[in-house]
């Protein structure tokens, strides 16, 4: 095969892949909040489409109640009846891979977008 054919293929790949990578990168920046109970997704909220803040109460039927506050681009647990209140103390999440976790209610709230920095995990205590 001629060298110039390879050059054309190489250029074509770059021409196709670079815009694709850019678009995929942009898509990854969205703010979808997924709420999981015991590993199952029970609610999905597009935080970018929220124009006015609102609250909702989640009751697992076993006495665990979490009040979730949804604002444009962010989400938090504003109140809970769990003893340690780690979910409330976690505060508002707007991005990154840090989930809000309520162990007693087996509740996880996670923003599915990954931060632009491309971290594999977050550490904190």
């Amino acid at each position: 095969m001629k060298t110039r054919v390879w050059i054309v293929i190489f250029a074509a790949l770059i021409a196709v892949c670079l815009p694709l990578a850019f678009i995929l990168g942009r898509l990854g920046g969205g703010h979808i909040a997924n709420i999981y109970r015991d590993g199952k997704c029970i609610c999905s909220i597009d935080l970018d489409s929220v124009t006015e803040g609102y609250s909702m109460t989640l009751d697992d039927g076993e006495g665990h109640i979490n009040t979730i506050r949804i604002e444009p681009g962010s989400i938090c647990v504003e109140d809970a009846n769990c003893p340690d209140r780690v979910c409330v103390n976690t505060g508002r999440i707007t991005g990154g891979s840090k989930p809000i976790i309520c162990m007693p209610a087996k509740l996880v709230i996670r923003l599915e977008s990954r931060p632009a920095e491309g971290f594999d995990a977050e550490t904190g205590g």
Partner: protein
Amino acid sequence: MNSQATFGKNKGLGRRGKLIPALVFALILSLVPGCAKRARLELFAMDTYMELTVYGNKAEEALAGAEYEIKDLDGKLSATDGSSELSRINLSNGEPVSVSSDTAEVIHNALIAAEPLRGALQLTLRPVSLAWGFTTGEYRIPAEEELEELLKLVDDGRIRVDVGSNTVALPEGMALDLGSVAKGYSCDIAAAILQKYNVSGFLLNMGSSTIMAWGKKPDGGRWRIAVRDPAGEGYAGVIETDGACVSTSGGRERFFTGEDGNTYCHILDPETGRPVDNGVLAVTVVTESGLWGDALSTALFVMGAEKAEELYNSADMSPERRRFEYLFIMEDGSLVLSPGMEELFTPLGRFAEGGAAQ
């Protein structure tokens, strides 16, 4: 005719002609992330939420093995589950208790890890922790006299562990809590299982306070572990590593506000029996072992930055014996890093501005 034969017969291609196809293939490969098989698992265990990701041909099998072991250890080492082996020890009234090799080993290894930590890590702090309500959520501020009495029950030197017969003996009234080392130990055990399956890489996120990255990332890059800014929503920086355990202890996620209006974090100083209040917001350590990392991050949080530096430079901490690097995030907004951490850590956000690192 296959392409290899064509390349072989085309004498006109030369070195440049071979280089270009190679570049095209390299580009294609680089654009196909995750050629390795990937398995992922989320689970609630050890009072936290874990995310385990494994890469390799036997990733699913390996992950199932790791999951089984973590759940098994959770059942044995829980201080709140009345049927756990740890609870049997705590309720033994001073009688020796037969336990599994896992339980004997984690206590034995934790005591060895604590040896050079100058008393800053005590497994027998549970009676004091209970008085503050950190294990039950019924928070209160114990009186000084009460703390003085309870501190008489805090002495890891009185734990008797026999790893030959797998027995543990604890004097009456004393109680163990392995919360400071159980996740790290489980991380080590899970890692050993995954490596037996010859997986190519894994990331064990044992609830963000203990994270182990090992092997190759599918994209070939280094593992990037972000360190949260404990005083804000963003990041203090990022640790990049080819494989290590990253452990963090801090007081900003588990705390309560007392009737006096002060906040009290869940990590207690074994000397005073009171929550640590020494100007440290969080400490992150990088180690090879999960248990060592967990033990160390808790102890350094208690000790503070100055004593950490002394420990780092002491003969006990020679690189051959216990290698570690540390990062302190202080209340005044400064960072204190060990020399090796400076090579691993890149500050971000407010820490990248104005040279906050010391």
